[in-house]
């Protein structure tokens, strides 16, 4: 086992990956039962990316993610209860139930979404980083997006601007080889994504996204690079989604064999194997972990079930700061007092 990992770290990564998987498996069941609606994009297969990369950030750093963000929010530390409640659409959810699966938010953890327009998060991340730079804060903004986003103009505009202005953005491409049903090689003339970042004079690396340790090592290094004021950095994680794009699709665009081959590289199974081989982990440890995660998931489901719906009268609340029903925030009270 590599020197850069303690047992404690390794167990924590495994725990986080399993929390994501169990949370999502349960969410998929609850979808079938009609408890969750709309779009539900599962991260299953890609867990090593969130589990390995997010611990490399500090509490002060920011995260901008996509509609496939359950794992990121969980690892960041938003409670499973409030995430499950959000999936149900309950007022106890992390966005008061208004966003659902695609729109997790948690201001206290600088988690800026949960944004569902492909490519739409990159300019926002550039702006967050600009604010930090202008105010002399040594914070990093981590921006997750898929391989599909690489085709959007906003990707290119954002990389260029961040590099030009040397902004502290960490661009994290979760390359799962497909944008819905369109394979990378069918939408990119240059399928080497890191190469594109280099074209903007940005430091870029390709990382095995099925290996949580590799993800952690590469991300920690990249975070340091950015924090030291060297400008943005780009990581491309090579990963794979095991499930359909959203809850259902006919998967006409890939073969069962291909999916099965990738499943041989299941990030959880592989990493657990390594812990066992290093004699850091055994059946009993696993049983204990399984039991505690199962309890956490069931507790989250019970919490979500028990939560109230937001009253319909609150619909206009927070459309803007003046909207009816808004409580006066500390800032607006102060402003009014000043006047």
């Amino acid at each position, binding site marked *: 086992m590599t020197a850069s990992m303690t047992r404690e770290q390794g167990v924590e990564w495994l725990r986080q990956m399993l929390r994501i998987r169990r949370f999502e498996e349960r969410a998929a069941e609850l979808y079938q039962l009609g408890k969750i609606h709309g779009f539900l994009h599962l991260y299953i297969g890609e867990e090593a990316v969130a589990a390995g990369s997010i611990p490399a950030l500090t509490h002060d750093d920011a995260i901008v993610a996509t509609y496939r963000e359950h794992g990121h929010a969980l690892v960041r530390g938003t409670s499973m209860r409030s995430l499950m409640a959000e999936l149900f659409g309950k007022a106890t959810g992390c966005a008061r139930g208004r966003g659902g699966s695609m729109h997790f938010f948690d201001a206290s953890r600088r988690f800026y979404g949960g944004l569902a327009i492909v490519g739409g998060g990159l300019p926002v991340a550039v702006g967050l980083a600009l604010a930090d730079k202008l105010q002399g804060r040594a914070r990093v903004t981590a921006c997750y997006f898929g391989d599909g986003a690489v085709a959007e*103009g906003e990707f290119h505009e954002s990389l260029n601007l961040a590099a030009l202005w040397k902004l502290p953005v960490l661009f994290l491409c979760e390359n799962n080889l497909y944008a819905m049903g*369109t394979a990378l090689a069918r939408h990119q003339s240059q399928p080497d994504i890191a190469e594109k970042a280099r074209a903007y004079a940005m430091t870029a690396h390709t990382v095995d996204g099925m290996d949580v340790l590799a993800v952690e090592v590469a991300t920690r290094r990249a975070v340091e690079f950015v924090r030291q004021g060297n400008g943005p950095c780009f990581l491309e994680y090579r990963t794979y989604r095991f499930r359909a794009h959203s809850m259902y699709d006919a998967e006409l665009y890939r073969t069962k064999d291909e999916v099965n081959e990738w499943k041989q590289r299941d990030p959880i199974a592989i990493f657990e194997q390594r812990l066992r081989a290093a004699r850091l982990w055994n059946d009993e440890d696993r049983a204990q972990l399984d039991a505690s995660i199962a309890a956490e998931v069931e507790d989250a489901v019970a919490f979500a079930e028990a939560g109230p719906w937001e009253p319909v009268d609150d619909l206009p609340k927070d459309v803007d700061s003046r909207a009816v029903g808004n409580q006066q925030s500390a800032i607006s009270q102060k402003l009014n007092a000043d006047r």
Partner: protein
Amino acid sequence: MNITYREAVRSGLREALQRDPRVFLMGEDVGKYGGTYACSKGLLDEFGPERIRDTPLSESTFVGAGIGAALGGMRPIVEVMTVNFSLLALDQIMNNAATLRHMSGGQFSVPLVVRMATGAGRQVAAQHSHSLEGWYAHIPGITVLTPATVTDARGMLLTALEQPDPVFIFEHAYLYSMEGTLEEGPVPVEISHAAVRRIGKDVSLLTFGGSLWKALAAATQLAQAGIEAEVVDLRVLRPLDRDTLLASVRKTHRAVVIDEAWRTGSFAAEISAVIMEQAFYELDAPVARVCSEEVPIPYPKHLEEAALPSVENIVQAVRRLLG
């Protein structure tokens, strides 16, 4: 013959591709995936990858490429997955597609057809529930169609391809699974007129797209209370057929406009203004509007329903008008 709206769109696409070798379809996941709403399922096998083209996620560029291909003599059908993502292509639409003919002194035309899904009602939250066809109807130089029936879903596409100028077709996502009867008649349907979908004498319900079915359901309920509502399907938002809607208002003397967009600056406001300008003295009551609440559309069902126009809202609006 009974078919779904989705099958109607597919049959229109197939016929268009068979009729004219210049026609091709491009957009995100129209090919191998079979279309986000399965409208183009099977067409890749039938017509091949030259004519059923999967594009990268580049709304601005593939809409712009559609404009270029149209300028170059092709008859492209561009599918923008949903109206929500068309915002990324707004520059191409507004500054190129809509202006080129006029700005070039009539030297160029852009025979482009752009289709997209629109509307809310499927619990997909604030970034995936927009109804922006009214915005598009603001733009001179383009035609805006809102097929609400299976006949229009198939026929309007074929008519659109016969136009020398850009045509935008908005398909309400809620309608794709709806079944309907294909009407007899010319297959490229006419696109100059609104259609009276139900005859009545007491009030005119003026609407389009997905809201048509709510208006018809409201009319059925009102009929049980002895109120005869006339339902007008505007069909074409630009150029608007004022005559048909004004004729209806002159007959019933009351109008309720139903529009899934937000009230402020909505297409419903435009319709209301048309009535004020041209039928003010015919009215027995002020024009009423049933629109969405002025909030981003929320995810949970009870809040989404509260935000969108409902059959009940329409019935109530009519009752208020009739006093």
